[in-house]
C-alpha cells in the first residue's frame, strides 16, 4: 500500500525531468555503475599489484582515466562538489594506480580547477583576496605538514583514514545547511583589524550586498585541520572550506563558494610541491586527469544552463559513500 501511495509522487518527479536532466542523470549513473562494475569486470578487485594493467595495453588506463575524469567533471559541476574530492576516492579505489600517485594527481587536478576559476571569481569580486590571504596562509602551511605526514604513513592507514573522511564528507553533504546571507550583527575584532569585509552585486535580486565576518579566530583554527586533510589525502578542500566560511564565519554563500574555490589554488599548491618533490607525480596519470576534468567541467557548465537535476547530487553522495567504503575495505586488506 505504501508503494502505491508513493507511486504518484515518484511518477511526478520522473515526468518533471527534462531531456537534459536525463542526460545529466545518465552520466552520473554511468559513472556510478562504472565504479561498481569496473573492478569486477576487469578482475581488479583487491589488486594493486598491476596484474590487470599488465594484461591490458598501456593506453587503456590513461584513456579510461580521461573518460572517467570527464564524467567526473560533468557530475562535479551538476552535483555542486569539487572535482578533487571525487578524484582521489574514485580513482584510488577503482584504478590500478598506487595511492601515492593518485594523491599527487588529485592535488594537481584540484589546483588546476582552482587556477582556472580563480581569475574570473576575483575579477567579479566574488572571491575575496583579503578573506583568502590569512586563512590560505594557515591552510597552506598545514597542508605541507599533512602531505609529509601522509607520505610517511603506511598506505593502508591512509586508505582507512581517507575512506572514513569520505564517509564523513557524505554525511556532511547530506546534513549540512547553507545560509545565503548569514546574519552577522557585528564583525569581530580580528576581521575588523584585517579589514575583511566587502560588497557584491546580487543579480537575482538586483541588490548590492554588504558583508562582513565574525568568529574569525575559530574559523582560522579550523583551517589548520582543513590544510592538514588537504595535504594528507590530496583532496580539494572545498567541502570543508565552504561550511567554515559560510556557516561559522558568516560570509555570504556566494562569497564563501568563490573564495573557497580560489583558496584551493593556494592550499593545494603547497601540498602539490611536496608530492612533486617526493616523486609522486606521473605525467601519464596527471595530464589525462587534468584534461578530462577540465573539459568535463566545461561540458557540465553548459549542461547546467539547461538542466539541474537534484538526483545528480544524491548519486554523487552514493558514489562517494561507495568509494569511501571501498577505501576502508582496501585499507583493511579485504
Amino acid at each position, binding site marked *: 500500500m505504501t508503494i502505491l501511495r508513493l507511486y504518484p509522487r515518484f511518477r511526478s518527479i520522473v515526468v518533471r525531468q527534462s531531456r537534459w536532466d536525463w542526460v545529466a542523470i545518465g552520466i552520473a549513473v554511468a559513472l556510478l555503475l562504472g565504479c561498481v562494475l569496473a573492478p569486477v569486470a576487469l578482475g581488479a578487485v583487491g589488486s594493486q599489484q*598491476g596484474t590487470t*594493467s*599488465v594484461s*591490458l595495453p*598501456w593506453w587503456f*588506463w*590513461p584513456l579510461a582515466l580521461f573518460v572517467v575524469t570527464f564524467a567526473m567533471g560533468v557530475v562535479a559541476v551538476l552535483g555542486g562538489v569539487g572535482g578533487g574530492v571525487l578524484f582521489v576516492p574514485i580513482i584510488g579505489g577503482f584504478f*590500478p*594506480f598506487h595511492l*601515492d600517485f593518485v594523491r599527487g594527481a588529485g592535488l*594537481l587536478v584540484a*589546483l*588546476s580547477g582552482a*587556477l*582556472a576559476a*580563480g*581569475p574570473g571569481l*576575483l*575579477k*567579479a*569580486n566574488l572571491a575575496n*583576496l*583579503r578573506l583568502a*590571504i590569512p586563512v*590560505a*596562509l594557515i591552510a*597552506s602551511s598545514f597542508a605541507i605538514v599533512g602531505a*609529509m605526514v601522509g*607520505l*610517511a604513513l603506511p*598506505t593502508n592507514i591512509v586508505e582507512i583514514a581517507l575512506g572514513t573522511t569520505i564517509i564523513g564528507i557524505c554525511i556532511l553533504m547530506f546534513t549540512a545547511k547553507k545560509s545565503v*546571507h548569514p546574519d*552577522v550583527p*557585528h*564583525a*569581530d575584532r580580528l576581521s*575588523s583589524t*584585517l579589514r575583511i569585509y566587502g*560588497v557584491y*552585486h546580487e543579480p537575482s535580486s538586483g*541588490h548590492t*550586498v*554588504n558583508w562582513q565576518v565574525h568568529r574569525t579566530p575559530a574559523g582560522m583554527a579550523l583551517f589548520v585541520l582543513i590544510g592538514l586533510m588537504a595535504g594528507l589525502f590530496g583532496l580539494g578542500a572545498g567541502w570543508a572550506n565552504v561550511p567554515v566560511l559560510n556557516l561559522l564565519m558568516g560570509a555570504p554563500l556566494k562569497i564563501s563558494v568563490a573564495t573557497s574555490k580560489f583558496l584551493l*589554488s*593556494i592550499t593545494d*599548491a*603547497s601540498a*602539490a*610541491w*611536496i608530492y*612533486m*618533490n*617526493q*616523486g609522486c*607525480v*606521473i*605525467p*601519464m*596519470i596527471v*595530464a589525462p586527469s587534468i584534461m578530462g576534468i577540465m573539459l568535463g567541467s566545461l561540458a557540465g557548465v553548459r549542461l547546467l544552463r539547461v538542466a539541474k537535476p537534484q538526483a545528480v547530487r544524491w548519486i554523487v553522495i552514493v558514489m562517494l559513500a561507495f568509494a569511501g567504503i571501498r577505501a576502508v575495505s582496501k585499507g583493511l586488506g579485504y
Partner: protein
Amino acid sequence: MKDASRPSLSREDRTQSKPVMPLLETCTEQLRYARVLEKGMLFGLAVLFLSFLLYVLGILEPFIPLHKIADYWSVDVNTYLDRAGVEGGWSWVGLLGYGDFLNFVGIAVLAGTTILCYLAIVPILWRSHDRIYLALVIVEVIVLSVAASGILGTGGH
C-alpha cells in the same frame, strides 16, 4: 568584541541598493593578482597539453617507455623511483629532453603561479602601507617557496 571604527550592519543595511562601506569595484591588488593568475594558468595549461601531446604521440622519446609505464604506477613511490632510476626533487630538470619529464614544466608552472601572484601584489601593499597583509603575503611566499624548493624532503618516503 564590537569594533567601534566601523558601523555594524543590520539586515536592511546588508541588502540595499547603495553600498554603505566599501566600493563595489574590485581592489587593485585583487585585480593584479587575478591578471597574473590568469596568465600563469593559461601558460601552464598550454605547456602541459602541448608537452603531453609530444609525449603520448611518441614525438619525443620518453624516459620510461610507454609500454612499461603500467609496471610503475601500481607500486609505491619508493619502488617507482628505484625501478625507474629517478631521483625526486628537481632532478626532472636534468631530464627535460625526455617526453615524460617535459610535462613537469607545465606542472611546475601551474604549481608555481601562486608564488608569482603573491609577489606581484607586494608593491601595491607596500605603497598602500598595508603592513599586516604585506607581512602575510611575504610569509606565504616563503612557505610556498620552501615547499617548492625540496628542502622538506625529496625522493620518496
